[in-house]
């Protein structure tokens, strides 16, 4: 009796173990197949990498030493990058306000309008800023203005998305209080919504400013202004020592802005 009981358990659990192993084997095989498919698709192979390695090092060699005197010459481009980011963030922050309010279910009671605002917000974020920039360059011409507009669209979407989510988690007790004193919608927003949401809004705006600084360094690659323009020109003209300087300056710029912005955001909490 005991032995038959034991064997029945053993055969049952053995079947389960076999099934689990089979499942794991199939999943592993599928994942490997996807990797191989992707690698073949882009022509990735280790032999090529090893063969190109000397070329890479010679390029790196030609970048050194960086052309330090070039640093001063690119100052205007650095400033343009910062200006693009500042304007794009500020305008994006303004545009994000109405969308934030419409996309917060606890402020906007109109369900269809709420869904439209949410969909719009998500839609504008599905397109990367470089793609916006390329389209705008084609539409309104080369330059920093096209790049700035591209970042405005992107900033609006990100700030609205993050802030509306914070807003939906806010204490709605004060909303009830403003309704009870006879306040209208605008007064509700001014007295109960803004004071509660201002820290998150400012924090997210600074965060988007950091992202915009980073994004505006590559806008030049598609002809939309900023320091990226210098990088592309240097590479196109094989001035690798100038390119090296540009990359270092970009790195420094992003690092400094990140540091300052992070410190500021810490103080908001």
């Amino acid at each position, binding site marked *: 009796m005991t032995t038959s009981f034991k064997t029945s358990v053993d055969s049952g659990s053995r079947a389960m173990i076999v099934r689990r192993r089979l499942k794991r084997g199939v999943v592993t095989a599928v994942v490997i197949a996807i990797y191989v498919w992707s690698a073949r698709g882009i022509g990735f192979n280790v032999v090529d990498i090893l063969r190109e390695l000397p070329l890479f090092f010679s390029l790196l060699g030609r970048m050194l030493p960086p052309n330090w005197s070039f640093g001063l010459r690119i100052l205007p481009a650095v400033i343009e990058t910062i200006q693009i980011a500042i304007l794009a963030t500020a305008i994006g922050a303004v545009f994000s306000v109405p969308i934030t309010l419409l996309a917060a279910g606890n402020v906007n009671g109109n369900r269809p309008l709420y869904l439209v605002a949410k969909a719009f917000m998500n839609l504008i974020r599905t397109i990367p800023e470089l793609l916006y920039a390329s389209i705008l360059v084609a539409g309104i011409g080369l330059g920093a203005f096209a790049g700035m507009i591209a970042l405005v669209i992107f900033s609006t979407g990100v700030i609205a998305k993050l802030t509306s989510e914070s807003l939906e988690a806010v204490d709605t007790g004060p909303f009830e*209080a403003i309704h009870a004193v006879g306040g209208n919608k605008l007064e509700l927003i001014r*007295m109960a919504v803004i004071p509660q949401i201002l820290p998150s809004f400012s924090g997210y705006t600074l965060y988007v400013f950091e992202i915009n600084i980073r994004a505006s360094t590559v806008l030049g690659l598609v002809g939309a202004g900023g320091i990226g323009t210098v990088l592309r020109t240097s590479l196109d003209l094989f001035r690798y020592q100038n390119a090296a300087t540009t990359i270092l300056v970009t790195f420094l710029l992003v690092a400094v802005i990140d540091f300052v912005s992070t410190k500021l955001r810490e103080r908001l909490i």
Partner: protein
Amino acid sequence: MTVVYPGGVTALDKLNLKINRGEFVVVVGLSGAGKSTLLRCVNRLVSPTSGRVEIDGTDVTSAGTKKLRAVRGRIGMIFQNFNLVKRSLVLKNVLAGRVSYVPTWRTMLGWFPRADKAIALECLERVGIAEKAAVRADALSGGQQQRVGIARALAQRPQIILADEPVASLDPPTSHSVMRDLKRINQEDGITTIVNLHFIDMAIEYADRIIGLREGALVFDGTPADTSEAVFEEIYGRAITAEDKLGDGP
């Protein structure tokens, strides 16, 4: 008056009440008995499914948006959780009570007229925390926060004050001092006051008139002297326990 919530829950069932000017009415009942709904029908934060609410002959139930806001402007409301903007200054919270008197554009810019600021300060003085005007609301104790709530209601220069479980988040001594403030204001200004409470002893101590609700229906209406243990057992639908009393008298 009847209130049926979406989902079919009947919160108030064919209630008929007349509250007299200047009365201090305490509504008692278990949670879910319809106390909050009754209070919110007065300023129409909840709209009755059928029936009417009249204040001084004005039909609140049929009032349009603009008229309703004007009516609400003269009805102060005090909440269990205070409903203050915690990050805002105390004075700012009290000024919220002036919103229906101040033009919207001024409120939007945060430019409250000097006279309204004076009223807000005076209201803080009446509840004894004028020195806290320039402090953030979340820096105050629970009792002080509820006083800010009372000051906000007073700043409306209200005819009626509705207080929904105003002491439920406070400790017993603070509860009594807040109730004494409400009673004093009721007596000094003649403001009709309706308070929801679930503590029997407090109701008896402060009320001019007690209204008992049970499952949305009126089961008692009389003075504290008319009440007895049996009356409260009828309201609560069960025996009265120590938890139904706050204790720690003033």
